[in-house]
């Protein structure tokens, strides 16, 4: 976070000029990488988002047309995308928390095995997971076969695949390890004795979780939520592969602008709208998490 960096930089005592120069020299590569990899391309596209594309060329200038178009033409897909991302991030963060909590406080050495297993699924790659879910949820998939064999259904269920539910399941599976990591890291900082003390004073397990654990890991909760939310909001592969047919995500339209329509200004405007909307939503979520789980 830039603010943190800034406070750290200003807080660093610089007793003599030489050490200050050394600090600057040491920080320079990181600063240049930051500038080159993050600031420069973003600024470039931000400026472009106010340009205008005409048939075979791009006209520099200052036009708000692109943004107006985003709101008039693409608000549907944008809201749908934010909606799905919100759902996925919520489910994933809750599951990630429960998993990390059990690993940290309940499962002992078995927990470490589970944690390692969950993290190794990160190596499987993203598409592999999607195709795995296709073979699980399909009409001749594992789930349907099992249900038929158990005699619970006679015809395979069609509703398992190609809808928003399948998107949520698939993305949750993909993102879960990423949600677990920050939360587990934060939980390791919480002393088990605090939980024992809360129990001793009369708190139930759930109450201790809410009063003692959750308030202490608020930043990690937001980090997990934010990570999952941004990845889900930017994703358009999963919805294309397991979602409702033709229910394109905002990302599809962005991609279309950059490739098929070669309208980088519009694509940039759409990207920045998505970023801004996501950040706004994350601010709200952060505020809510902070309030709901504040120390009382």
């Amino acid at each position: 976070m830039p603010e943190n960096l800034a406070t750290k930089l200003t807080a660093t005592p610089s007793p003599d000029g030489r050490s200050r120069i050394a600090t600057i020299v040491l920080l320079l590569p990181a600063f240049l990488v930051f500038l080159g990899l993050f600031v420069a391309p973003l600024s470039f596209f931000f400026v472009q988002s106010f340009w205008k594309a005409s048939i075979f060329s791009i006209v520099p200038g200052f036009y708000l047309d692109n943004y107006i178009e985003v709101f008039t033409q693409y608000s549907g897909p944008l809201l749908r995308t934010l909606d799905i991302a919100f759902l996925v991030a919520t489910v994933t963060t809750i599951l990630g928390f429960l998993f990390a909590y059990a690993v940290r406080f309940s499962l002992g050495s078995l927990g470490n095995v589970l944690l390692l297993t969950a993290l190794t699924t990160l190596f499987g790659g993203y598409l592999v997971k999607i195709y795995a879910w296709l073979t699980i949820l399909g009409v001749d998939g594992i789930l349907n076969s099992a249900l038929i064999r158990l005699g619970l259904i006679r015809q395979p269920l069609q509703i398992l695949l190609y809808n928003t539910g399948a998107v949520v399941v698939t993305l949750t599976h993909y993102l879960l390890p990423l949600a677990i990591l920050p939360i587990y890291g934060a939980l390791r900082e919480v002393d088990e004795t605090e939980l024992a003390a809360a129990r001793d004073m009369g708190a139930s397990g759930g109450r201790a979780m809410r009063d003692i654990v959750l308030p202490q890991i608020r930043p990690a909760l937001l980090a997990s939520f934010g990570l999952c939310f941004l990845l889900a909001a930017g994703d358009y592969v999963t919805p294309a592969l397991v979602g409702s047919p033709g229910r394109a995500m905002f990302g599809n339209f962005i991609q279309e602008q950059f490739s098929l329509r070669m309208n980088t200004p519009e694509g940039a405007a759409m990207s920045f709208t998505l970023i801004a909307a996501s950040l706004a939503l994350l601010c709200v979520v952060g505020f809510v998490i902070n309030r709901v789980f504040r120390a009382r």
Partner: protein
Amino acid sequence: MRSFPQDHARRAASPAEAMAGALSRRSLLGGAAAALAAGVLGGFQQSAYADALKHVSFVGWEGYDAGFHVGNFLAKHNATVDTTYINASEDMITKLRSGGMGIVDLTTFNQMYAPLMAEAGLIVPLKTDRLTNFNELLPKFKQMAFQSHGQCFGVPFTFSSCALLYNPKMVSAAPTSWKDFLKPEYKGKVALFSDALTNILVWAPVATGVKDPTLLTPDQLDQTIQLLITLKKDHVRAMPASLGDGADLLTRGEVAMIMGWEPMVLWCKAKGVDVSIAQPVEGTWGFVDTFNIAKQAPNLDLDYLFIDQVMSVDAQAKFGNDNFLGVTNGDAIAKLTPEVKALYGFDNLDAYFAHAHVYPRMYPAQSDGAHVSYEQVLDAYERFLKA
């Protein structure tokens, strides 16, 4: 950004990109090595090393470069290929527009795009008399090569079509029309392409009866979109993101019929599922891809030799057999496997193309007043996606 399989099917204009399974690993690895070599050597290529190894830069679909490696062609001409694979036709345009001019030699545009790209100053007209194998082209393709104002902007090199594929075990009777997609018995058991151009070009004749769907009135475009929306909302199980995913829908029994592609028949067969090609009365869109020379190509003379090479009998036969795709060199047909020959009905190609329509050119960049422009088509298609 992750690699995105949907990009594969995004343009069926040159559908061969999704041959992932069929393509040899060698060409893939070769491509990577060539790309690396290009990065390292790129800066030197036109300098003092005139007599040294020549680097020919190819930007096109994966697998289309296979012909260069047949025989000892590269060694004979002391040349090597720098390969850039694309995910969509637009990638070639982007590459040429963003500094590729003067570096890129060869591209593989769909025949519909080629005249437009020449108009935009990206590719040059070809002197076909410099191509010894041009005369071996089947008459149909020879003629097709010159259909734009008598100039040739690309040598037709392969063909295929958006075929109506169905699983005989899941239908009561072989489909005879694309309208069979709308039958109640197939509700939730059909699949569309996820590519704008293919969906419009296939469904516009169905929705409006128009003969040339590249010339649509706004009304006709609207009717086409309405039909697509109806299909999507009430009938379609999925819009597979890539051609491979489309074949998967068939093999997994998710759908009874799909907008498909001839090679899928053999992909499905490899997985033990028999699918058939129907002959819908409305016909379909035939894809023909061409080899083009980019404007300011650095190795112009060599580029002709390269195109001649991929048009040679051996290169064509290998390409067709490896990828289950149609070939345009008449003498190569005899060397095709029976399966590939059967897929495209090489004994009666006229019948094939009477069904798979090859349209002369793309939508106009600007509307002529009566007909819609490409932008309008894409806008309308987005309406379908958002619905």
